[in-house]
């Protein structure tokens, strides 16, 4: 973007991070093996971003728009249901 178009002083409105897509930051993406997942929510607790999504009645899923690919969920998952897979 040209310097003439940017908002001066890098001022942004509050609550904009939900619309900020960070998927491009990832080298690897977490993939859940639903058969092994016990829905214990350990990944949901440890995830530093709101990238693990809870659901009523079904198991957790991943919000890939807000997952930066840190891999903490893979490390912490007790039944080893999450594996980091290289982005294509």
């Amino acid at each position, binding site marked *: 973007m040209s*310097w003439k178009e*940017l908002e001066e002083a890098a*001022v*942004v*409105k509050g609550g904009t991070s939900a619309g900020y897509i960070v998927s491009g930051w990832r080298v690897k993406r977490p993939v859940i093996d639903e058969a092994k997942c016990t829905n214990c929510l350990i990944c949901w607790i440890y995830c530093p971003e709101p990238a693990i999504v809870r659901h009523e009645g079904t198991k957790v899923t991943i919000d890939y728009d807000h997952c930066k690919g840190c891999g903490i969920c893979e490390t912490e998952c007790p039944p080893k249901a999450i594996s980091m897979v290289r982005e294509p």
Partner: protein
Amino acid sequence: MTQTQAFSVAALQGDEAVAEAVRQSDVDVVAAYPITPQTIIVEKLAEFVADGRFKGEFIPVESEHSAMSACVGAAATGARVFTATSSQGLAYMHEMLYNASGMRLPIVMAVANRALSAPLVLNADHGDMMGSRDSGWIQVYAENVEEVYDRTIQLFKLSEDPRVMLPSTISFEGFIISHDKERVRLLDEGAIKRFLGRPAPKHRLDPNQPLTFGAIANPDNYFEFKMQQAQAMKNALAVFREVEDGFEAFSGRRYGAVDSYSTENADRVVVANGCSAGTMRAAARALNAAGEKVGVLTIRLYRPFPAEEVVAGLRNAKAIVTMDRSFSLGAPSGPISEDVKSALKGAGLGTPVMSLVYGIGGRDLSVDDGKKIFGMARDEDQFTATQALYGVKG
């Protein structure tokens, strides 16, 4: 020049004049920490608060880092904000200086110059200001108490202009000006307030409409934000002139970004700033009375650098001496010298320039020293590629 009002005359120290200007300028927040030789400013403002003569918020913070941080927060709400410091205090503010300028906050700061420790010294050189030269702040250097008073008022107008929105510094030598009592023609408070108006920033912090100032930039746009600041600096050159027009209209006083004293027909011209400019003019006056042809170019506005006006004042000179009251160790010459040489080169002028460093740590410069410096400029051998240290012992 037309004088459109009656002045009240007072004998004030430089620091007192700053405090008086701040009191009269409808300032909302002052966050400051005392440090010699700026202390009187903070003391005086505290006194005004105690006496009910200053209605703004006075925040006695615990350090200069906090002072500038509080100023940043206050200015982001759209308040008119002032602080003051010296030397180590300015150094301690250093990282916050960049936040103030990057967030485009029109804070005004007074700096009573003092050389940096170690070894500890209380007296003036411009080392403190030059250390923050590249922080995106407007820098103005004053040479007497009345100019300090006038510039403090003017800088609110300049900084708050929508085309500028940059913080600014009024700089003056510690003790020589900060503690020297001089005659000041104080202006009418109502006239000052009419001249200044109120800050009207595009963005301001408001609990009902949350904003983030200075949010993250990545390599794909940080450069462009800096370009905006550079453009604002460029705008400030023109706005500076407008502010002086407006100020002159009600005060009858004007200084210019650059002052040329008998440079028209001079074969030798000295470039100086701060209080030494007056000393050099006194020396030039004496020499010219004795038939010599010398002049003095005073750089009052240093950032943004008024290159065109500097070149205009130096165009006829056969030899130029630049005087830096700061010692950039290991550099080919002082910062003012390098800027002047760069401006000359850019204008296609190859005039020989002698780069002097003088007055470090408050070492005095007398009118006799000034005459000696003009004398040195007669000697071609003195014009070497390296800087000369004027007045160093040994």
